[in-house]
C-alpha cells in the first residue's frame, strides 16, 4: 500500500459556494497541511475543476486542474481554490457564455474571503475563459483582490469572442461544442470539415446539437469584461500566435502595474510550455513554466511589477522592455506590374507607393485555408504551422514581398494595415492580411501576424489591426504581406456573400505600418 504524500496538501472537493443568485457553485480547495496559508489563490476554470487529466499531453498541468492546484499550494504555501463556473463541472445552473461570470466572480471572492481555509490576500487566476472571470473579479472586488495572474485574457467583444474586429470566428463552434455540458464534450466524432463548411445556421444541427446557442453567441459576448485597467498588480502570459495576444498586450498597457510575458507560443503552448512550437525549435530558453511566474507573483504581491518580457523572434531570445518602447513608424507599400498572384507574381513591398491595383477572384467553395489541415481548429494541442508556404500557389492570395533587408530591423508593437480595396459583392467583404518574415532563398517563411476586417458594400477603406509582434528581421530576410478574402475555418464568411466575387486592392491607398525600435 502506497502512503507517499508527495505534496503535503489537504484538499476539500466540491465545497459549495453561493453564486450571485444563490446558485450552488462548486469549488475545490487545496491547503498546505499544518501551515497557515500566506494567501488565497482563486482560479476559475470552465473545463471542470476535478478533471483527472490535463487537456492534451503536457508536462505542465492545466491551470485550475487538481495537479496544478496541488503543486501551487505546495510551492507557494497558499490556499488554492479552483472554481467550476456555473453549469460546468460540479456547479449547478446553466452555462450561458459570458452572462453570469461577472456577478458570480464577485460572489465567489466575497464568499471565499470568509472561508476558514482561506487567509491572507486574495490573488485571482485564470486562463482563456477563466481569465475573463479573474479579470471580472479583480476589477470589481477591489477591496479583496490584491493581484491577478492571467494566461490569454480574451479582452472584450471583438478580440477573441465571438470573433475579431466584427468578423465572427467560425472555429469557435468547436469551443462551443466542447463547452456544451458539464463535462467537456469530445471533439473527435464530428466531420468538422463538413460541418464547418455548412452555412452557419445549419452547423448546430449538423453537429448533432438541438440548441447550442450558436445564434446568440455574439450577443452574450457583451458580458466580457474587456481591457479596462485593473486596479491591482497583474501578470499576463501570452504568445505571439495566441488569439488573445492583442487583448493581452492592450490590457498590460492599460494597467498601472502589469508584468507582461510574451513567448513564441500558440494559445496552447502558453498554457503547456514546449520549446517546439509551430514546427520550429525555439530553444530550451524559450520555455517558461507558468507555475514559476505564479509563485513569483505571490511572493512579491505588494511590490510593483517589474517589466515586460518578450521573446523576440528572429533573435530567438528574451528581451526586457521598457513599458513603452520608443519606436518609429516603418511603412511599406504594395505595388506590382504584372500582378501579385502567388509567390511567382511580382508583388512588392517598398517605401514608395504603387499606382495600380491587383485583382483576384474569391471562391466561397474553395476558401483559403488558415492551416494545412483542420487540426488546429479542432484541437488546440494539434501542431500549428507557422510556415505559410502551403498557400504560395493560390491565385486568390495576393503576395507582396520586400527586397532583402540590408540591415537588421527590430519591430516591436502592433502592426496595422491601411487597406484600400473593393469588391463586386453586394454583401460585406472580408479582408484577411498576414505578415511574414521570408527567409533568404525564399523557401521558408515565418508567420508573424494576422488581421481581419469586414468592409461594408460600397466602401473601400479599412484599417486592419494585426496585433503586436516582437521580431527582428535579419539581413537578407524579407517582409511579406499576403491579402486574401477568406481564411477557413478561422473566419466566418459574411452572410449573403455570393459564391464567387471579384476583389481588387488599390496600391496607392494601402500601407503596412510597423513600429520599429529606434536604436
Amino acid at each position, binding site marked *: *500500500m*502506497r*502512503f*507517499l*504524500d508527495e*505534496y*503535503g*496538501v*489537504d*484538499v*476539500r*472537493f*466540491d*465545497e*459549495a459556494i453561493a453564486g450571485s443568485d444563490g446558485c450552488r457553485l*462548486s469549488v*475545490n480547495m*487545496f491547503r498546505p*497541511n499544518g501551515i497557515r496559508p500566506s494567501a488565497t489563490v482563486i482560479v476559475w476554470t470552465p473545463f*471542470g475543476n*476535478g*478533471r*483527472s487529466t490535463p487537456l492534451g499531453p503536457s508536462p505542465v498541468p492545466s491551470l485550475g*486542474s*487538481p*495537479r496544478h492546484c*496541488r503543486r501551487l499550494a505546495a510551492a507557494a504555501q497558499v490556499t488554492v481554490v479552483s472554481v467550476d463556473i456555473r453549469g460546468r*463541472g*460540479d*456547479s449547478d445552473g446553466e452555462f450561458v457564455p459570458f452572462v453570469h461570470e461577472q456577478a458570480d466572480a464577485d460572489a465567489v471572492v466575497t464568499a471565499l474571503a470568509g472561508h476558514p481555509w482561506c487567509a491572507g490576500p486574495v490573488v485571482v487566476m485564470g486562463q482563456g475563459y477563466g481569465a475573463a472571470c479573474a479579470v471580472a473579479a479583480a476589477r470589481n472586488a477591489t477591496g479583496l483582490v490584491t493581484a491577478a495572474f492571467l494566461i490569454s485574457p480574451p479582452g472584450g467583444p471583438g478580440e477573441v469572442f465571438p470573433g475579431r474586429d466584427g468578423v465572427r470566428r467560425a472555429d469557435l463552434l468547436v469551443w462551443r*461544442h466542447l463547452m*456544451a*455540458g*458539464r*463535462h467537456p*464534450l*469530445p471533439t473527435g*466524432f*464530428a*466531420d468538422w470539415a463538413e460541418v464547418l463548411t455548412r452555412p452557419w445556421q445549419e452547423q448546430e444541427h449538423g*453537429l*448533432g*446539437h*438541438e440548441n447550442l446557442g450558436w445564434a446568440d453567441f455574439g450577443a452574450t459576448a457583451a458580458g466580457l469584461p474587456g481591457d479596462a485597467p485593473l486596479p491591482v498588480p497583474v501578470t499576463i502570459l501570452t504568445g505571439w500566435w495566441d488569439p488573445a495576444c492583442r487583448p493581452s498586450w492592450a490590457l498590460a498597457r492599460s494597467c498601472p502595474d502589469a508584468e507582461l510575458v510574451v513567448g513564441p507560443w500558440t494559445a496552447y503552448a502558453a498554457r503547456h510550455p514546449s520549446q517546439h512550437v509551430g514546427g520550429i525549435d525555439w530553444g530550451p530558453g524559450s520555455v517558461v513554466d507558468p507555475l514559476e511566474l505564479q509563485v513569483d507573483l505571490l511572493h512579491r504581491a505588494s511590490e510593483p511589477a517589474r517589466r515586460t518580457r518578450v521573446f523576440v523572434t528572429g533573435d530567438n531570445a528574451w528581451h526586457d522592455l521598457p513599458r513603452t518602447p520608443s519606436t518609429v513608424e516603418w511603412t511599406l507599400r504594395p505595388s506590382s506590374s504584372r500582378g501579385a498572384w502567388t509567390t511567382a507574381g511580382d508583388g512588392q513591398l517598398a517605401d514608395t507607393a504603387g499606382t495600380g491595383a491587383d485583382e483576384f477572384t474569391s471562391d466561397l467553395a474553395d476558401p483559403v485555408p488558415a492551416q494545412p489541415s483542420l487540426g488546429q481548429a479542432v484541437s488546440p494541442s494539434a501542431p500549428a504551422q507557422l510556415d505559410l508556404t502551403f498557400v504560395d500557389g493560390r491565385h486568390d492570395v495576393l503576395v507582396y514581398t520586400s527586397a532583402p533587408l540590408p540591415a537588421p530591423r527590430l519591430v516591436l508593437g502592433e502592426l496595422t494595415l491601411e487597406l484600400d480595396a473593393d469588391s463586386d459583392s453586394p454583401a460585406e467583404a472580408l479582408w484577411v492580411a498576414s505578415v511574414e518574415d521570408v527567409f533568404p532563398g525564399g523557401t521558408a517563411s515565418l508567420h508573424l501576424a494576422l488581421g481581419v476586417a469586414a468592409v461594408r458594400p460600397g466602401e473601400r477603406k479599412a484599417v486592419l489591426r494585426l496585433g503586436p509582434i516582437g521580431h527582428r528581421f535579419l539581413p537578407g530576410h524579407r517582409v511579406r504581406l499576403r491579402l486574401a478574402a477568406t481564411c477557413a475555418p478561422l473566419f466566418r464568411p459574411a452572410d449573403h456573400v455570393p459564391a464567387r466575387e471579384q476583389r481588387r486592392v488599390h496600391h496607392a491607398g494601402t500601407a503596412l505600418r510597423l513600429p520599429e525600435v529606434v536604436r
Partner: protein
Amino acid sequence: MSSIRRILWARRIPTGDGDLVADVVFPPGHDETTGPLPTLVARTPYGRQSFLREVWLRLVDRGYVLVACDLRGRGDSDGRFAPWQRDTGDGVTVIEWAAAQPWSDGRVGTIGGSYDGLTQWWAAAGRPAPLRCIVPMAVGVRGRPGGRPFMDTGIPWQYWMWWFALTAGRTRQDVTAPAWGRHWAHRPLRTFHEAVGFPTAAWPDYVEGRIDCLGPGWRLSEEELAAVDLPALIVLGWWDDLTTLETWQALQAGPHAANKHLLVGAWDHVGNIVPRARLGGEDVSAGSLDPLAVVGEFLDRHLKGGTVPELPRARMWHSGANRWEDLAGYPGGTGERVLHLALDESGSGVLRRDASGPDTTDEWLHDAADPVATLTPLDAFAWSDPPHDQRYLEARPDVRVYTSAPLTAPVTVSGRGRFELSVSADAADADVFAWITDVHPDGRSMLPAGFELEGRRLSVRNGPRPEPLTDGEVVRVGVDAQWLHHTFAAGHRIRVLISSAFTPTCAPATGSDAHWADQEHGRPFAVRVHHGPTHPSTVHLPLQ
C-alpha cells in the same frame, strides 16, 4: 463507409421530475432519419461519454443505436445523485423513451459493467416492455441471507470512501488528488470523508447504515431475481466482484434459467471491457478473450434474432487447468473435500484430511495501527493490480499459513469454498479473514481468484445482533472463501491464509465493541485460531 458516427448530443429525457440527459450514437452510415435499428441503453454515474470509447462503439458498429445516459444528478442530468439507491423509475423511463424514438425499432438491450450493471438490474426490475435482454457485467445484486451489514460479513469497507470520493459532486472526481496515505489511518472513521477532503461524499450514509453494498436499496429480492425472464449475459473476471456469482446462482436456480448465460475469464474489474495480458504479476493472456465480442454475439441473437447461435450456458476459464470450458452449468462441484487446519510438530500450519491430532492454537498480535495491507495503491484503488503471489503477505507474523502436502493427483474445485473456524481474541471484538492460494512447486503462492476477500466480524457470528466476546471465549464462525473453477495440479499444494485484517479494503477492527465509525485504533491484542478435536477449524472445498 465513413467511420464518422452521427451523435445527437445531450438529448433531454423528461421524467416528470427533472430531465435526464443522454447522447445518442448511430452506427456509421446511419442517422436519425434512417433505421429504425435495435437500441442499446447504458446508464452510468461515471459520465455518459465513457461509452464513447472505441471499445463500446464496436457494439454500435454492429448495427445498434446507443443511448448513453447520465444518471440523475450526474453529468448533465438534473436532480441529485442518490448512490446505491435503486432508480427503477428512471431506468424504465429511459428505456421507454429510447424505444419510442423513430430511429429505434422498439427493441432495447442494456449494457455496462459495475455500477452500470447495477442500473441494468434496477431497470429490469421495473419490467419495461421494450427491454429484450440485459448484459450486467461484474456486479452482484443478490442479497445475503444473514441480515448482517456489509455484505453479511459485519466488516465495514474503508474502500467505499474512495468510491464515494470518485462520485462526489456531479462529475467524476480526481481521486489521485487527496493525500489518501496520510488519511487512511484517520480515526474516527465517522469523519473520514472530511479528513480526506470530500465533505459532500455519501460516506455518512454508509456510516449510518442508510446505504450498503447489497443493502436494501441495492439488492433485488429473490422473487425479483426469479421474475427476470429476460435473457441475461453475466460477465465476470476471476479477480473481480465475486458476489456476481451469487446472483448467477440465483438465476440458474430460477424458473428462467434457460436464457441466462455466464462468461468468466482471467481478468479483473476493468478487464471485463479490455482484459490485460498480465495481472498481478502473472501472465493470464491464455485466459483472456474479447468480452465485448461475446456481448455482441449475445445482443445480436436477442435484439436481431435470425440465426445467431446461442451462447453456451457458462463459458468459464478453468484456471490451473488453463483452458476455456463450455459448461452446462456452474458450479459443477458435486463432492466436497474437508481439510483440517493443524500445526505440525515444528509448529508450522498444515492442512490435513484427517481430523485426528492434538488440540493446538495459533496466536498472533493484531494491531489496527499496523494492519495486514495488500499492495493496493490508494489513488488507483479499483483499477490497481496488487500481486497475485501472496508471499509478501505470508511474510507477516499476523498472516497465518496452512499448507497441504504436495498433491499426488490433481484436485479440481468448482464452486465456493467455505471455512469453519474456531477463533478467540483478547478483545471484545475482532475480525477474521481467510482465503485460498495455489502453491506452485517453485514456491509461489498464487491467488486463483478474488480481489476483495471476505471475512467475518466475530461479534456478529450468530446474526446481526452484536454479541461481544467474553474472556478467552472460543467462537465458531463461518467465512466464505473465493468462488473457484480451478485445478490444483499434481505437485502443487493447497494453502489457506488467515489474518485478522485485510486493508486497505476493510477497516481494521480495533477490539472495541463501540460503533465502528467511532473507534480509535486501540492497543494491539492477541487473536487465535484453534485446531484439533475440541475446537476444529476446517476448509470445505466443493470438488468437481
